[in-house]
């Protein structure tokens, strides 16, 4: 353990004395401070949203940059400078070198997060204070509730990928919510829906939908007709009192006209209710981001055991980039499949309907590798917390455990590989 800590301390000292950490933190703090001067269209909450978004993007960007640059370069640089030659000639297990380096990077990321996080927090609070006169709900964090059950009733169209398509007049989606609670039940309850739409006319902009909100406790039913757009969330606001003390709600949504299709995913409908403190949520966000950095460090160290410095940096950037679009990679695979079968025309956009030689080639050559890659690479969506801050949503604790658990599991796979590769590595 002593050797691990010695190497960790050395790694930290190297980052500090080589001024890399200082430069990254300075640039990060400058970027964060610049967010105050960003021109904003709109008032009140919009300004705060920009500052929050900029702060989190800056922390994520500079933290990721630090994690990749430092951890991807440390071992290859030590090998190139032959410093590792003198270290491995001492009675040090090679696994201890890997562990020491990782702990050193954790120190570094910790310092970066502490400084940038504190500055961000102060800046967000300051901005909220300035906006207070215009918007009293500046830093209010809403609780998000996801459906516990989704059922498609009637004669629905088939499922394509993770989207279920319902045709108007032939089916409906039934969403059940449980455990709805708020400190102040007088607060408004917001129902937000994000659906895909298809109509008879291909260039359709909106379709009408029928919404029924049923309180199973009091059997009270609220019926609404609304228009759903392709890229704009549908918002329905209810008074919290209308729940009559119930913690359950059933919502039925169906397309209004025959020939219109409504594309539904399991997470298409959410309810927001109540308010919580910003500080706790902010800390939760930073915890999840730091878990992401830890995962990047582990992957970069794994790469550094067998790749040269430039190749390793490219490898890490590739993993990070692809890890953020794994969903798209899987969807791409689905889209290619759809092009091939041409069964569900309403499920894909007009551009994709025409026969496309390129996509057919993709289907034959890279569909399986892409799918495989999307499962092997780490899924960085587990660590995506930006939307929670921008939309002012409370981060559920289970999300912290999920992201932490995912990072630990992934690290448990990566670390033994790193040890094995590094143990057999020749330090020439």
């Amino acid at each position, binding site marked *: 353990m*002593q*050797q691990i800590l*010695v190497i960790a301390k*050395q790694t930290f*000292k*190297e980052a500090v*004395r*080589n001024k890399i950490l200082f430069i990254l933190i300075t640039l990060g703090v400058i970027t964060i401070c610049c967010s105050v001067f960003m021109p904003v269209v709109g008032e009140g909450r919009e300004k705060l949203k920009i500052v929050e978004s900029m702060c989190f993007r800056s922390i994520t960007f500079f933290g990721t940059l630090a994690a990749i640059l430092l951890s991807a370069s440390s071992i290859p640089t030590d090998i190139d*400078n*032959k*410093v590792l*030659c*003198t*270290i*491995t*000639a*001492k*009675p*040090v*297990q090679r696994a201890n070198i890997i562990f020491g380096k990782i702990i050193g990077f954790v120190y570094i990321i910790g310092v970066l997060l502490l400084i940038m996080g504190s500055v961000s927090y102060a800046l967000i609070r300051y901005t909220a204070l300035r906006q207070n006169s215009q918007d009293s709900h500046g830093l209010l964090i809403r609780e998000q509730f996801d459906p516990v059950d989704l059922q498609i009733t009637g004669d629905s169209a088939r499922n394509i990928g993770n989207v279920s398509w319902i045709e108007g007049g032939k089916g409906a989606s039934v969403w059940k919510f449980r455990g709805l609670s708020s400190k102040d039940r007088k607060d408004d309850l917001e129902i937000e829906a994000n659906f895909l739409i298809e109509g008879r006319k291909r260039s359709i902009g909106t379709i009408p939908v029928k919404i029924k909100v049923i309180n199973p406790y009091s059997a009270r039913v609220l019926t609404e007709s609304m228009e759903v757009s392709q890229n704009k969330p549908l918002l329905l606001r209810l008074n919290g009192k209308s729940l009559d003390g119930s913690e359950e709600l059933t919502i039925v949504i169906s397309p209004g006209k025959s020939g219109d299709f409504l594309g539904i995913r399991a997470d298409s409908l959410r309810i927001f209710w109540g308010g919580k403190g910003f500080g706790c949520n902010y800390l939760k966000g930073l915890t999840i981001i730091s878990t992401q950095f830890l995962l990047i460090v582990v992957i970069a160290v794994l790469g550094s055991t067998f790749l040269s410095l430039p190749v390793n940096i490219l490898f890490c950037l590739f993993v990070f980039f692809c890890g953020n679009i794994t969903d798209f990679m899987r969807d791409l695979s689905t889209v290619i499949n759809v092009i091939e079968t041409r069964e569900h025309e309403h499920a894909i956009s007009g551009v994709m309907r025409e026969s496309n030689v390129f996509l057919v080639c993709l289907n034959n050559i890279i569909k399986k590798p892409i799918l495989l890659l999307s499962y092997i690479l780490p899924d960085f969506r587990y660590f995506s917390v930006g939307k929670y801050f921008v939309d002012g949503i409370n981060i559920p604790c289970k999300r912290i455990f999920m992201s932490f658990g995912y990072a630990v599991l992934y690290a448990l796979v990566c670390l033994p590989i790193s040890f094995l590769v590094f143990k*057999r590595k*020749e*330090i*020439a």
Partner: protein
Amino acid sequence: MSDDIAIKTEDLTKAYRSFFGRKKVLALNKLNIVVRKGEIFGLLGPNGSGKTTTLKLLLGLLFPTEGRAYVLGKATDDVTVKSRIGFLPEESCFYRFLNADETLDFYGQLFRIPGKERKLRTDRLLKRVGLEFARKRHLKQYSKGMLRRIGIAQALINDPGLIILDEPTSGLDPIGTRETKDLILELKSQGKTVLLCSHLLSDVQDICDSVAIIDKGELQISGTIGELLANKDIVELLIRNLSKETLAEVERFIQEKQGEVVSIKNSSGTLEDLFLKIYAANISNSKTDV
């Protein structure tokens, strides 16, 4: 393995392979050497002959393609044996942002030497290698010679029983070279084993008990300096204060006894001796001026 053997190699072979696993260079071919405890062993050879590869194989930094090596009675992949080894690499490569104190402290910690003991050893070694005056200076500000000295100091921080030195005098001025040679002899007098490799033959001849010469990865010859350099049919006489007449008489006497005088000349010192003599004189003059 016998108790008095510090290093033993058995058909030690190292082939560097290409990316596709094909043999690219045969750096070492079936090397068999034995280094006895308490001796200074020199590994000689031109550049690229496989000297450094041998040292790295002994330290477990590289892995042999064939054959085996034992260091202090243990296989080279045994990490614990390294606690009794001091190693000076060919190039003095350390963290340049550390100063001499921190460097020795860092390597001392890797040997798990307690704090107080580390401090004592650091002080003693910095004094021994003449770097006390620059102990707080970052290594990036050190000259090549100073880096070599700090390299020697870190190799001795664990008070090793076996010291492996790769080109120990490279980059050192004549005074540094002499001091290093004296240090190596001092280590021998303390009962330590020294394995050094060099292509500076005079350095090796001055201090080594045994040598092995390798070329293109193959052992050419090995043995003690005495055995290898002895010229049994030629005798050298070094005589002081001999007149010309007596010299002629001696020559005549040798010829009468059927001996052949190969050459008669005045003895000359080495350039190193001359340099050190001038340096010593300058120091004593400057002390007198003060």
